[in-house]
């Protein structure tokens, strides 16, 4: 385990808080791209020795989470001609505070779970849980469809961090399958986002309210 892991995770957590507090959606997408790029380095650091397969996972993650997906989202935004998130149901500052609290909560939660010897003292589990929670905050409090997709991506990033504990156990095919599903998922979602924009002339999900009891 490299000593670089924890600084990277701290940066990831800071980017989470930053994403929660920013009202410009383009900046939020860039932040998530940076987070994805940072996470892409992790597979190389958690391995005891340098291998070709972690390198492949690493390159694909950086390409997908750091470049391709942010690019797809930015393009969808340009087409929809939106810039800012409307005031979320939980404001920007309160959601930042919630994000910070989620870190403390995750540290407490992680202490309840026993860790293997090799993983003692690492920030992997708390930062994974905190990132998952931040994803949930984003998903539930934002109104613009794109912001919700970003929330989903943060959630996925959190799961990816946990996956680092299992790099040696997870077969490459599964890792690639997960990445492929994420890519196709975002692809399908941006198509739907595009259709929402055409049909409702807006990406405000509060307009999606015809279906209810």
């Amino acid at each position, binding site marked *: 385990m490299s000593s670089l892991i924890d600084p990277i995770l701290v940066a990831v957590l800071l980017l989470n808080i930053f994403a929660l507090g920013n009202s410009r959606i383009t900046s939020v997408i860039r932040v998530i791209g940076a987070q994805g790029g940072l996470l892409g380095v992790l597979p190389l650091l958690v391995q005891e020795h340098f291998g070709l397969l972690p390198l492949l996972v690493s390159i694909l993650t950086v390409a997908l989470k750091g470049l391709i997906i942010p690019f797809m989202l930015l393009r969808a935004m340009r087409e929809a001609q939106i810039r800012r998130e409307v005031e979320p149901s939980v404001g920007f500052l309160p959601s930042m505070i919630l994000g910070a609290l989620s870190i403390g909560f995750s540290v407490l939660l992680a202490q309840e779970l026993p860790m293997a010897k090799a993983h003692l003292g690492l920030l992997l589990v708390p930062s994974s849980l905190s990132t998952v929670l931040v994803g949930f905050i984003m998903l539930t409090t934002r109104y613009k469809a794109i912001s919700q997709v970003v929330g989903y991506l943060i959630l996925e990033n959190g799961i990816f961090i946990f996956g680092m504990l299992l790099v040696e156990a997870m077969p490459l095919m599964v890792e690639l399958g997960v990445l492929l*599903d994420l890519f196709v998922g975002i692809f*399908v979602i941006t198509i739907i986002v595009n259709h929402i924009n055409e049909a409702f002339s807006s990406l405000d999900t509060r307009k999606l309210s015809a279906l209810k009891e």
Partner: protein
Amino acid sequence: MIAMAFALILFPILMAGVAMALPGNRTRPWLLPLTGVVHLVLTLWTLAKPELQAPVGWLVLDPPGRLILLVISLMFFLSGFYAVGYLRYRGEWSNRTFTSCLLAFLGVMTLVVWSHHLGLMWVAIEATSLLTAPLIYFNRTPRSIEATWKYLLVCSVGIALALLGSFFLAYASLHEGLDSSLLFEDLLHHAPRLSKPWLHTAFVLLLVGYGTKMGLAPMHTWKPDAYGEAPGVVGALLAGGLTNCAFLAVLRIYHVTVAAGEQAYSGRLLIFMGLLSMVVAGIFMVGQRDLKRMLAYSSVEHMGILVLGLGMGGLGTWGALLHLLNNAMTKGVLFLSAGNIRRAYDSKSIAEVTGAMRRLPLSGTLFLFGFIAITGSPPFGPFVSEFTIVTAAFQSGRYVTGGLFLLFLLVIFLGMGGTVLAAVQGRPSGRSRLIPYRDTFLTGAPVAVFMALSLLLGLWIPGPIRALVDQAAHYLETRP
């Protein structure tokens, strides 16, 4: 015969490619029944010859998988013919994407059944979400966009939690220094030594994750919207095929907890989720005015019944396994006939749908009988399986669970009855008489066959099917 697993999975996907390439909008839908026939023949052949079920790497056909493979194949076989009739009616729209996604959907569902690897199964279930999104969106109305958006977002988040749960389960075995392969065989084998805190958390996450896909309350919110806006044939395949795939995932995880000696923990959670789903479904079904949303809540209810039976173990497991077959066949009747009714009235609200038995004698009557069957009245299949689950509850001393189960069934019967009777009885409105839609052979016969199967299962369970259910129930009680 290594080829069988690959043939069952890859043939539909190959046909999806063919559907993409075929230019004719009228001939293309015939690929659906063609694939359905081939898939069903291969499935029956595989089930009849145990040597064809030999595992290939991560692809293993376990006994519950055999049962669910048969259900999926039957559902697709009958729905495929119906889809030809439906798409003929919607001739002005291109059905290229619809047909391809439907075919690939069958292939991926088959992959879920065969995959005995936690990660591979996750990838396959996620793929089903992505392939069904364009199917729900087929009508391209603002309402169907809304439904698709909610479906994609809720299911993606649910499935993401299932991935986290899978990782936790893998860590439960890594933590104990076990060779952490994600194959179910290894997990079951090592189950008693898995780290308990990780196993418990993993089970909760996986139940929430795959429960979202099944449509268990309170993660069912996408279901009424998606089933309400999707074409009837898609509703039938989601309610009778995809939900069973997600149930299979829950069932396999539950099996690991049973093998770990944690049945008390996981069983209690399943019973709780089951009862909660039934009560939520009951609340929304009473006074429901939309026929398809009513069916969606009925699906929530029956998913609840499945996990409830599973959570009780023993006879309850047997009942749940039989019920998944009964529920699928009866949901086939209900969704397909509701699709016909919707087209005849250009509405699915009972404000406009009245006198369906006069307007569409075949579909209207089958819809009524489908309602009688799904609410657990004899002599139809669901009666037998629901009766088994009640018996299991009382035999194991769970009087409160059994009593609540019966109470919820009664409430749902009354609630659903009000809506269904309002739709089928009385005189058709003047507006509906102007719509030229009539029952045709292709949109009528498959519904009648579903009904016949539901009746058959209520009167007499054929030997081979009983054997499949017996083996699956036995398998879940034991450790390989």
